[in-house]
């Protein structure tokens, strides 16, 4: 009944070996599955490791978006002086702290690009420069240029890793000094951090995902990517917290009230994602301009329409209806089910964003065969063609993510001297 609570003296708050074992698990998964993927990728009939690289972009965007969601939560928490997060903030910090590893893993598709791989991004293909077929995108080929792209990628990586590192470092510092001023410093820092975060996230989405179909454009794309990522992030957050509790840690501090809030955020972002996705779809569908509708043409007709429906129902309609109830967020098995569900469908959403760009059309132009790039040709020839490598790369990169998280799970799992801890422990939902 009280406003604040103190940490239970018997509470296990030390990470101990947890981080190390998680890193080991991650390493195992990453090695095994990325190894399998390399083999499968090399064996894939399309050759040139093309399928592997496409799957890699999806898997990378997946782990990146989860880290992004957690970083956002941390910055927001400081910005609004939130309460409920405090007790589980270390876990969020560990997840966001995987950022450097994620960006190193991303070199897996950046390096081939820099070294002249031309079948992943169409704008890196020589035919993209042909004015006969691509006069509407010539002006942006200076922006979408492999080296400049890589430079931007490094900048994004440094900026986001710095943000994640800074908030984590300061928070850990408070554990030893107990200085309440650190909270104040972080709060002041969170404002500019949010601005930087928003800009970078937006442009990562534009660069890595939107430029897959370089002629198409949508101003809301960055926002929609972030919304989708946050769904996955909160689902992963809940699962990781539950997993840590299963090891006997934090059992007295983290209770259904905190899971309820994670569920609420997952629910909110499920709705928010649907809102952004609908805004983008509605305006392009209704506006009916060929340079925009091409994105949906290849997703609404042919085989891809079934994936579109699956994303709509699986990522929005079904979880939305059930997450509305307070009980799905408070009863552990239900929460686990929907977290896993949303994590899978978050992947499918990214798959849906990237994979329709896989089939590139060609056209004869004055006796030379030109590659027209993604979203061309008859929709009937665009196949969904799920491949085992799509899945193995995804799992392998989740392993990479776990390495990043495990490395950060050290020391206290609760910011023991945070002034808002008492409120967070006593947190109750209405």
């Amino acid at each position, binding site marked *: *009944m*009280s*406003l*604040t*609570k*103190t940490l239970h003296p018997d509470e296990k708050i030390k990470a101990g070996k947890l981080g190390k074992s998680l890193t080991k698990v991650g390493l195992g998964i990453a090695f095994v599955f990325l190894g399998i993927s390399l083999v499968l990728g090399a064996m894939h009939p399309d050759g040139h490791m093309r399928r592997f690289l496409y799957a890699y972009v999806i898997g990378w965007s997946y782990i990146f978006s989860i880290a992004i969601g957690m970083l956002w939560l941390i910055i927001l928490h400081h*910005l*609004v*002086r*939130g*309460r409920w997060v405090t007790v589980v903030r270390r876990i969020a910090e560990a997840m966001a702290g995987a950022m450097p590893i994620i960006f190193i893993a991303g070199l897996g598709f950046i390096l081939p690009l820099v070294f002249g791989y031309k079948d992943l991004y169409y704008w890196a293909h020589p035919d993209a420069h042909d004015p006969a077929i691509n006069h*509407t*995108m010539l*002006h*942006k080929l200076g*922006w979408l240029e492999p080296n400049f792209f890589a430079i931007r990628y490094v900048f994004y990586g440094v900026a986001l890793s710095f943000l994640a590192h800074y908030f984590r470092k300061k928070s850990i510092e408070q554990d030893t000094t107990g200085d*309440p001023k650190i909270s104040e410093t972080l709060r002041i820092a969170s*404002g500019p951090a*949010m*601005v930087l975060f*928003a*800009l970078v996230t*937006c442009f990562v989405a*534009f660069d890595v995902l939107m430029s897959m179909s370089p*002629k198409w*454009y*949508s*101003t*809301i*794309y*960055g*926002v929609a990517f972030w919304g989708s990522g946050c769904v996955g992030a909160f689902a992963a957050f809940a699962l990781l917290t539950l997993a840590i509790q299963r090891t006997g840690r934090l059992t007295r501090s983290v209770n259904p009230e905190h899971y309820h809030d994670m569920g609420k955020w997952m629910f909110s972002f499920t*709705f928010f994602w649907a*809102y*952004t996705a609908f*805004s*983008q779809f*509605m*305006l*392009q569908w*209704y*506006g*009916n*301009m060929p*340079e925009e509708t091409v994105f949906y043409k290849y997703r609404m007709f042919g085989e891809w329409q079934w994936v579109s429906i699956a994303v709509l129902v699986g990522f929005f309609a079904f979880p939305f209806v059930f997450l509305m109830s307070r009980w799905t967020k408070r009863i552990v098995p239900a929460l686990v089910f929907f977290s896993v569900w949303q994590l899978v469908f978050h992947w499918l959403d990214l798959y849906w964003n990237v994979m329709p760009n896989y089939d590139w059309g060609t056209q004869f132009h004055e006796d030379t065969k030109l590659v027209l790039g993604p979203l061309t040709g008859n929709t009937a020839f665009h196949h969904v063609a799920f491949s085992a490598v799509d899945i193995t790369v995804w799992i392998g990169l989740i392993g990479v993510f776990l390495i990043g998280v495990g490395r950060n799970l050290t020391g206290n799992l609760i910011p023991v001297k945070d*002034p*808002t*801890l*008492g*409120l967070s422990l006593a947190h109750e939902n*209405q």
Partner: protein
Amino acid sequence: MSTETTAGEPAAEHHDEWKPGEARAAFRQVTKDVAWVSEAPKPHKLWVALLGIALILFAIGVYSIYVLVTTGIGVWGNSNTVCWAWDITNFVWWIGIGHAGTLISAVLFLTRQQWRTSIARSAEAMTIFAVMCAGLFPLLHTGRPWLAWWMIPHPNDMGMWPQFRSPLMWDVFAVSTYMTTSILFWFLGLVPDLATYRDRCLARGQTVRGIIYGIVSLGWRGSARQWHRYERAYLILAGLSTPLVFSVHSVVSFDFATSQLPGWHTTIFPPYFVAGAIFSGFAMVLTLMLPARHLFNLKHIVKESHIEAMCKIMLATGSMVGLAYATEFFIAWYSGNMYEKFAFINRAFGPFWWSYFAMIFCNVVIPQAFWIKRVRTTPILVFVLCIFINIGMWFERFVIIATSLARSFLPAQWSYYHPTRYDIGLFVGTIGLFFTLFLLFFRYVPVIAISEVKGVMPEAHAGKKH
């Protein structure tokens, strides 16, 4: 035990021991602090003066409407080229202002920002009055407002039905749903406080007023079983209002974005309009509350920390709007669509350049001042900056509407827009209407949610065992 509290409240001392009657005295004080405004036998002189000014402005508006209705839309500056101008600008502006009220009453409630309690009631009232003003413009722009009921689906001799594929029809549904919801939400919150007024009036022997308050408070008696359902209903209404407020301004943005006009057709519009709406709405809340807390001596309820929090929200939403401006420019270039590119260059350097830079200055540059704590804690400065933001957000809508229309696809169609005195008169009139209603509200209705304020006081936990 940690004694630090957070979330905008200055660390309230959380004692465990309460002297008998101490908590009750505190509750009594809150009731009195709020109720005296309407119980004062004579209104404040400044209040009367302001009401007079507001009524004069309103009269100008009534005259403009009279001329408009008896003559026709031609009295406005709208032309074939700039077919939407001040009317729709004002409509979007007013709707946007209304959104902050819902945000305060719903979104901040859901995210447990307790500082909202002090301003929630007046912000909700602001929503209702702003939506009333907003609704006038499209209604009058129909040209024959007395036939507006044709937009309601009903069987008729002509066998005609409304056209649901039109975004303008979506607007009708969105805005009327919003109006209904805002009124019901507001009234639900009012009932316990009206009961307080009822009991106070009856205790002081004002039977007639007491009976009126008694009827509108529905016989509320603060029973725990009733409070239980009431709280659930309040929470759910807040939960319903949140997607609603998003949808309303998104639908408003659809009016533009579903078209193909360069500068209107862009997918970021829905969230960007919502952010802009909240931005302008908070500016208006502060424009109203800063003088009011001074005038009615509510400084210890509407605290400085609350003003600061609102400044921060304006900073955040202002930055979002700025981000959207930047994204739009980037994508206009990125898209390779020559019309789109032209539209944006024209905005900044075309004949309406002044409105564009007024918008950038007021919406992007001005809120940056809120990074500084000194600015946030100086009410007079905040007030001035908020006026700027109100103006800037008006210009934003004007820039979107007028510049795009005045320079659309066909150069032969290009023109310029000049408002007439009736455009100005009607806009001024809605400001008058808004302030008239708001001043009346301030005098006769509990301006602060008394029961909610009591619920978040430290005294609300008095006498509890741990």
